């Protein structure tokens, strides 16, 4: 045993030297970096602070920065990343990321709705095991729940200079992530009416969702907050201040139309497929999807109802125990480069949370400024509601009530 002692000595010193030289390199990189909305390569920067790291002089990194892993497992929703125009099965952003970092991203569009996806990884998270995913994208209320349960990795913002520099201020300081480093917004969007213009004409009122002339040809969403929220707006209640009584009233209204033969299906992302195929002509819909689905059905339209629509944000989370946390941070940071964010926004047609992306989009195509899905006009913004943050008890109550309309 004792003869191993001397052998162990030099290693920490070598590690220290390596660390010191890398820290020097990092300082050099940081000095070269520019502020604001420019892209910055990730550096072994200072310990996590809220300011842009490029401006503060880095101190010696405690450990040498890890290198990007060979692969990264990324779970997302459909129509949420720009496909390669040459090859539908590839994504430009991921190809570029691989060219720069050498990481093959295993990108899977497996999230159909928050609950059902969460169901697939919850047992592992509960048991403290790796879920197999390095990045997942979930809506804010689900992100809040994951963080509350301690199932999200704390991100090292030192590795994410673009996120710290380019995240819109409006997204900072949410109540459910006090340190703002367990989630990073992916896109925001609206919930409103999706319809097949040829069959329905242009629709503007949330009343249509409860009009029995669409019986058998209508989808509601399995996302409780979207379906209940739109129903509350139809009933004149405010989803941003929803009470149990509002919930009961909304459930009663859905039950009423279902009993009168509406026969609405409840769908996750699959509603978009139903609409494009013509199985339904009207659905509750997420804003960008209708544009992304246009090539398959040119008659699709989207509207935020005159009574109001829902506003939500989907967030990147690194699940606890993720194998490639560092690379996940690089990936999230990569999409916060304004030019990357601009390209994604142009395809997905959702509201981008990245500063500087809007300017690049408009510079490349002035028409984009008029795209109401990426840049909702003031009057639309005024009609949008963010669903009230529910306590655990209220959430259980709402979920249970909603399950009854799902027939469960």
């Amino acid at each position, binding site marked *: 045993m004792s003869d191993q002692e001397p052998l162990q000595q030099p290693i920490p010193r070598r590690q220290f030297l390596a660390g010191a030289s890398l820290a020097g390199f990092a300082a050099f990189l940081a000095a070269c970096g520019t502020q604001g909305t420019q892209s910055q390569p990730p550096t072994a920067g200072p310990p996590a602070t809220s300011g842009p790291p490029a401006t503060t002089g880095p101190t010696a990194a405690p450990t040498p920065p890890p290198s990007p892993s060979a692969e990264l497992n990324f779970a997302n929703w459909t129509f949420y990343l720009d496909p390669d125009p040459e090859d539908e099965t590839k994504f430009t952003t991921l190809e570029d990321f691989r060219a720069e970092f050498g990481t093959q991203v295993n990108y899977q569009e497996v999230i159909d709705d928050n609950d059902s996806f969460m169901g697939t990884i919850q047992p592992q998270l509960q048991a403290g095991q790796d879920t197999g995913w390095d990045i997942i994208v979930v809506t804010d209320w689900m992100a809040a729940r994951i963080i509350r349960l301690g199932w999200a990795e704390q991100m090292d913002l030192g590795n994410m200079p673009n996120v710290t520099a380019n995240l819109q201020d409006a997204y900072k300081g949410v109540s459910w992530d006090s340190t703002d480093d367990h989630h990073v917004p992916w896109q925001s969007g609206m919930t409103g009416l999706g319809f097949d213009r040829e069959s329905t004409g242009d629709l503007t009122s949330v009343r249509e969702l409860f009009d029995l002339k669409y019986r058998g040809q209508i989808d509601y969403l399995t996302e409780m907050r979207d379906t209940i929220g739109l129903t509350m707006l139809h009933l004149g209640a405010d989803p941003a201040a929803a009470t149990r009584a509002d919930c009961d009233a909304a459930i009663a209204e859905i039950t009423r139309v*279902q009993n009168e033969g509406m026969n609405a299906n409840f769908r996750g992302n699959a509603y978009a497929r139903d609409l494009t195929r013509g199985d339904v002509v009207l659905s509750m819909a997420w804003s960008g999807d209708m544009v992304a689905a246009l090539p398959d059905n040119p008659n699709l339209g989207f509207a935020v109802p005159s009574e109001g629509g829902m506003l939500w944000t989907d967030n990147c989370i690194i699940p606890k125990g993720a194998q490639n946390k560092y690379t996940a941070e690089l990936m999230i940071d990569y999409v916060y480069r304004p030019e990357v964010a601009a390209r994604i926004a142009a395809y997905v047609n959702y509201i981008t949370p990245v500063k500087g992306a809007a300017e690049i989009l408009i510079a490349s195509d002035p028409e984009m400024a008029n795209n109401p899905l990426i840049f909702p006009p003031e009057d639309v913004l005024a009609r949008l509601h963010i669903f009230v943050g529910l306590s655990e008890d209220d959430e259980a109550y709402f979920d249970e009530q909603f*399950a009854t309309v799902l027939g469960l």
Partner: protein
Amino acid sequence: MRFLRQHRGLVPYLLLAPGILWLLLFYVAPGIVMLGSSFWEGSLERGYAFSLENYTNYTNALSRFQPHFVRSIEYAGIATLLTLLIAYPLAYGIAFRGGRFKNLLLFMVIAPFFTSFLLRTISWQIILGDQGIVLGPIKEAGLLDNNFAIISTPFAVIAGITYNFLPFMTLPIYVSLEKIDIRLIEAAQDLYASRSNAFRRITLPLSLPGVFAGSLLTFIPAMGDFVNAELLGNPQTTMIGNVIQNQFLTQNNYPTASAISFLLMAGILIAVAVYARLLGTEELTSGGV
């Protein structure tokens, strides 16, 4: 070896050991854990507490989800009957009239298994969709009302279960028919039994073990199935499997979910016991598959 020779009595147990260990590890142990959690109270975030007084989980679940239990028995029962009606003539045909095509025909029965169960069910969704390749043209021609639907009806759910479980019924029946000594049937006819009489008094009773095995293999998984109801049904056709999935994975209500699972297991055990008694288990297992 010498040890085994000295303790001959142990040999059967040692041979059984892998199977028993497997059952202990993957059936009994999770079962006990689930039995425990069915007496819990609380929530994912607050934590759970065990108390025997929470037997109310069972009574509440039974009263709240009774329609789903009834519907599951109904759907699984009808589907089992339908698979039997389709599978018996099919198996009979393959066993007695298959000739040199026997193997090919059997292969065709199991061929669907080469594609995922989910994919096949989703394909039905697409094929029978309201504007799909079957209904679309018919509606276009004005032969059907535009609101006519196959998907999202009880019919679609039962048909889906029937389709998906057909091979589980066909194969056991085929095996028991195949084993029948053809001379018995010939003897019956020699003794002036009509064809239908020979079938009723010789073939059918001898094939009952296959019918028994096949209906268990169909009915039990069909009772707990949630895929067909999820993909082919609507909120009025949800089965108990959908409820368990929702309680476990969406509502995180583990106590209720566990209680329903145990009620389902108990229900199936009772149903199987009654069924076995009706058909006479002794003979069935002795001549079983």
